[in-house]
């Protein structure tokens, strides 16, 4: 029972890492432009993520190494620095998008433009990391994240035809706008599968002192936690397909995506949408900032614990402070968070092999995992989805850029 309470880590990882501005925007765009047709991308992303998260927890529980610890040890510093640089470059953009998501939620609630909100939002997020302990961040994110269940309520209240929904789970070719279709598919995969999520989850498993007896619990947490995020994303897509597509609304602005909830819930929809986005993005900001700080600290072997006073692990604290400042800058200058989201999600997909392929090698190394190493199913599923995400991104990102 005590172990199942660790589900909070799974839900927190899922709310912060999965259902955030990236997943909501890409799922809303998919639904608005292609109906249920892109549901398969969310299904595939969720499936791959379940496997990756399960692996990240397993390596931590069995070897007492986080993903990053093991990567630095096995592949050496020169390889680690490549992963570090590529992950950080992409993740700073993702972080800007998430901070922007909170700021945009404040904008639609108050009418005051998001650039004005950027600084106070960043300050609140930073203060939570500065003063909060790991368990507060973990449990707080998962409790507040429950508001996002309203996306699922929305989907149900719009009464979709379930046979049509089911057919969207099978991949099919679009009848129009192939480049756009591919690009949204890539962005959905990038929004679902993010390396920082693996770093956060395995660090959480170490902070919560998991051992080998957690292997079965870890599996349950990965499946339940990530399915939670996946289902909610599907809820967004279904809601957008039913509420926005008939009106011919394509989701280019944050305000337009709010319509998917106000159609089903006229009275509370607007407020619920803003609250859902604000809390989901808040979870993401905390998770991403911590994951980057862990990436540095573990890669370089620094002392760090989110439970220590900030000046006991100054380098760790310094990293999340700096990355939040850097990610706030584009918002202050008024860069559109929705644009940043789409660019950063597709770039995440394109750079996935750098972080995931070596991780697969690690997961097959008996030195770290002994009898708990990967079977062929997990290797194949993750390998194929990452390959698909990579190939799709190589094809569709240039097409998207050329098509404007």
């Amino acid at each position: 029972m005590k172990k199942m309470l660790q589900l909070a880590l799974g839900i927190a990882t899922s709310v912060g890492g999965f259902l955030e501005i990236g997943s909501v925007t890409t799922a809303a765009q998919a639904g608005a432009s292609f109906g249920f047709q892109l549901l398969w991308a969310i299904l595939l992303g969720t499936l791959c993520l379940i496997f990756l998260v399960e692996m990240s927890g397993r390596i931590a529980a069995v070897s007492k190494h986080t993903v990053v610890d093991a990567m630095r040890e096995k592949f050496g510093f020169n390889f680690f620095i490549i992963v570090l640089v590529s992950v950080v470059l992409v993740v700073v953009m993702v972080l800007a998008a998430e901070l922007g998501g909170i700021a945009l939620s404040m904008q639609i609630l108050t009418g005051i433009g998001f650039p004005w909100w950027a600084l106070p939002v960043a300050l609140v997020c930073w203060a939570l990391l500065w003063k909060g302990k790991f368990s507060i961040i973990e449990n707080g994110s998962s409790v507040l994240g429950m508001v996002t269940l309203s996306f699922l309520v929305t989907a149900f209240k719009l009464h979709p035809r379930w046979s049509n929904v089911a057919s969207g789970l099978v991949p099919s070719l679009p009848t129009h706008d192939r480049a756009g279709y591919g690009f949204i598919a890539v962005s959905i995969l990038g929004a679902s599968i993010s390396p920082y999520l693996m770093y956060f989850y395995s660090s959480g498993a170490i902070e919560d002192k998991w051992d080998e007896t957690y292997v079965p619990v870890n599996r349950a947490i990965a499946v339940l936690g990530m399915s939670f995020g996946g289902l909610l994303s599907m809820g967004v897509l279904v809601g957008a397909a039913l509420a926005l597509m008939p009106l011919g609304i394509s989701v280019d602005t944050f305000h337009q995506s709010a319509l998917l909830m106000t159609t089903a819930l006229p009275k509370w929809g607007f407020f619920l949408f803003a609250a859902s986005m604000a809390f989901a993005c808040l979870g993401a900001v905390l998770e991403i900032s911590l994951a980057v700080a862990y990436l540095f600290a573990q890669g370089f072997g620094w002392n760090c614990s989110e439970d220590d006073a900030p000046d006991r692990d100054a380098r760790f604290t310094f990293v999340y402070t700096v990355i939040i400042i850097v990610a706030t800058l584009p918002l202050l200058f008024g860069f559109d968070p929705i644009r940043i989201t789409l660019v950063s999600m597709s770039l995440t997909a394109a750079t996935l092999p750098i972080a995931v392929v070596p991780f697969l090698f690690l997961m097959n190394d008996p030195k770290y995992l002994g009898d708990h190493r990967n079977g062929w199913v997990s290797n194949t599923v993750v390998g194929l989805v990452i390959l698909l995400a990579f190939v799709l991104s190589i094809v569709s990102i240039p097409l998207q850029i050329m098509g404007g």
Partner: protein
Amino acid sequence: MDVIRDVLDKQLLDSDGMKMGRVDGLVMQFGERTQPRITHIEIGGPTLAARISHRLPKLTRRLAKVWGPRRLEPVRIPWSKVERLGRDVRLNVRGRETGAMAWENWLAKHVIDKLPGSKAK
């Protein structure tokens, strides 16, 4: 013992179990008649920079002169201080007293402690 596989890049712990960096480099001595042996463990930026490119340390030295704890030489811990080799490398030294924590201490003093509430959670 396969030194590269078993020691290089491993986590270093001090005598209190505090993480004090990783084995970023190893200093070896080659004698004419004796077996080559490890004499020191190196920790920190200059050693890592040299692993990427032998030209990089010049640049990092120049940067180190203007900002940070102004430590120009790599941190070296004698191999004799190694207490245990396992999942981590445990050293018989106090981490905060070695140069390995120079940046940590510098950032704590000059950046983190300037912000309110840095001493407690």
